[in-house]
């Protein structure tokens, strides 16, 4: 039972503790959005997690999220249509939630 239990999350579904993140947790959060994670999703998730580790922040807005993906993975993936298809809604927010990163402050 313990291994299947979801770690503590806030009212918008973001993990309270980043270290609770596992690929299983990611898949469970994604399933809540009716998303089945494919290689394309994992590429972005891993990118976001390494971006966070390197810069100690998530891209602070959707547009900067797109810019950062474009810088790292090229224009085919760093565009809002591609990211919107993978992570519907607000891609930066949806992707951060699945990647186990903090809730963005909607700052920009």
């Amino acid at each position, binding site marked *: 039972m313990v291994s299947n239990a979801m770690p503590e999350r*806030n*009212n*918008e579904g973001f993990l309270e503790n980043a270290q609770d993140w596992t690929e299983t947790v990611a898949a469970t959060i994604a399933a809540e959005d009716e998303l089945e994670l494919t290689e394309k999703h994992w590429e972005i998730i891993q990118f976001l997690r390494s971006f966070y580790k390197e810069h100690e922040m998530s891209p602070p*807005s959707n547009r900067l999220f797109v810019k950062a993906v474009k810088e790292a993975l090229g224009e085919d993936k760093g565009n809002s249509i591609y990211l919107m298809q993978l992570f519907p809604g607000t891609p930066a927010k949806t992707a951060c939630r699945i990647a186990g990163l903090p809730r963005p*402050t*909607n*700052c*920009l």
Partner: protein
Amino acid sequence: MAETASVTFTLVITGAPYSSQAPQTALGFAQAAVDAGHRIDRVFLYGDGVHLASALCAPPSDETNWSEAWSQFLADHSVPGVACIASALRRGLVNETEQKRYELPAANLRAPFEIAGLGEWVEGRIKSTRTLYFHAGD
């Protein structure tokens, strides 16, 4: 110099009331700008400046209540007053939406102030004839 009728200002206040002179200087400027027939496009509170939007300031009755004075000015002249959301959340200033989102015990944003992102500052800075900043002094 631009035509008087089309002159607009965005004012950014970064100093808090009672720990800086920024809100009163900004109000003096805003009043003079309006008196001269100019328009204030918006007032953006940033950093410690967000404290100006608190509904819970209660200074002694023989001192100016700067939050109240600013609210009055914004209402009288239909000027949007926007507190930066990131600055506000860090400093304990929230409206009811953010109160619910972060499950906080109370909301304390004074009308007619609103909470929004830095995009409001960027837009003001692009649209206005001049964007002026009112910082804390020493």
